């Protein structure tokens, strides 16, 4: 019995040490891809004035917008989130309407990858066309630095924090412009998202957040560029 207790104590201590190592794991805590210098940036503010609708399964204390929007509770879509957002050069000057479907990734693991979410964006600029953008983001840094300590452990918030979750699936750990229509038809490119969390509290959750979706088109082939001119 004594041997079993000693072994068990060792195992518990080992598990606690491993949990601490996972929590501060540098493999899952790094910032993702930043905005490319030649990217066009479409900004939004959460929750107001940019978010037209937000539907989910009541996770992480996020609000439902509007209040009576149907929840995504069915088991086939559990954990997914739908956001409908006006995107602009800055808050209030919307240039595009975007539907964003966020799907927690089955590649999520806390040892090597982090908490991964696949984001599918359909961005439409009336009169110009639509852009299909795919990004894979690691939201473990946001969970670790803000949501767990402030939201769950009720610690005071340290202040404005910036996150760059995008880490794929395109080359150079960038998101991808995977398809386009209208004037953008045939174009490809990279994409990334950055978030500046300006206010967060245990009671109110995400009270003020500024997000940016940056899209950088690949250069035109030389003959196509000449034709475009």
């Amino acid at each position, binding site marked *: 019995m*004594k*041997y079993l207790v*000693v*072994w068990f*104590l*060792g*195992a*518990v*201590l*080992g*598990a*606690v*040490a*491993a949990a601490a190592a996972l929590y501060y794991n540098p493999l899952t805590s790094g910032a993702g891809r930043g905005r490319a210098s030649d990217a*066009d940036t479409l900004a939004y503010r959460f929750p107001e004035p940019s978010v037209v*609708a937000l*539907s989910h399964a009541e996770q992480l204390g996020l609000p439902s917008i509007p209040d009576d929007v*149907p929840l*995504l509770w069915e*088991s*086939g*879509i559990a*954990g*997914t989130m*739908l956001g*409908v957002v006006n995107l602009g050069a800055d808050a209030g000057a*919307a*240039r595009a*309407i975007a*539907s964003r*479907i966020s*799907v927690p990734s089955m590649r*999520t693991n*806390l*040892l090597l990858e982090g908490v991964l979410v*696949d984001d*599918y964006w*359909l961005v*439409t*600029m*009336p*009169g*110009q*066309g*639509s852009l299909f953008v795919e990004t894979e983001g690691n939201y473990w840094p946001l969970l670790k630095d803000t949501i767990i300590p402030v939201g769950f452990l009720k610690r005071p918030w340290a202040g404005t924090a910036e996150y760059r979750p995008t880490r794929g699936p395109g080359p150079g750990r960038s998101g991808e412009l*995977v398809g386009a*229509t*209208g*004037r*953008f*038809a*045939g*174009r490809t490119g990279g994409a990334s998202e950055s978030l500046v969390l300006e206010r967060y509290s245990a009671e109110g959750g995400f009270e003020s957040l500024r997000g940016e979706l940056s899209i950088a*088109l690949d250069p*035109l082939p030389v003959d*196509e*560029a000449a*034709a*475009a*001119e």
Partner: protein
Amino acid sequence: MKRLFVFGLVVGFAGTLAGAYLFPWVSYTRYPSETSVVANGGRAEQFVIRLPADRIESHVATDLAGGTMLGAAPLEGATPPSAEPAPAQVDHYKLRDRAGNVVGIAARHAVTQDPGATAWLLAVPSRGALMLAGTGQSAAAIEAMLVERGWTRGETWTGELVVPGPGAAGSVAATREFAGLEVELAELWTITGVEADGELRGTIELNTVGRRGT
């Protein structure tokens, strides 16, 4: 005794790390794909949207400032930007398979002109995402057909109106299980009623045929 403690420590440490690596942190209910093989090759699959139950959000985006985007020069063959862009009808639905299980979420962006350019984003968490573009049925066209069938704005209407889409949409991108497939999507609206507030009752069938790309 000390060795036993260290052994327990190592087992606890390694076991927790292995668990963090191997545990399926995210999983979705995977329903069998309701597909059939079509005669000339390819795989047919029908998705269904039941109205009004599956509507998540709809609105007409009228307050966009417009302006140029990305400084993009259109490629040869691309549609040039229109001088007076029409507002966009933006709809979001829960997406069902033919058996009626909710398997995904659909976003539809359509210009309000008739017939209008339409873009679909179909996300099925357990399988991947499909992004399609083409010509879809506009709300104005459906409304005009309902008026022809005796519907008056502000009043309820019951009947059956079947409205096929004016053209098919083709896939412009696909991920995971759908990757490598060239998919065509045809809309079929079956409207069985209209509420006093204009809400439609009925179904939208999304009939897809996917072929392995060359």
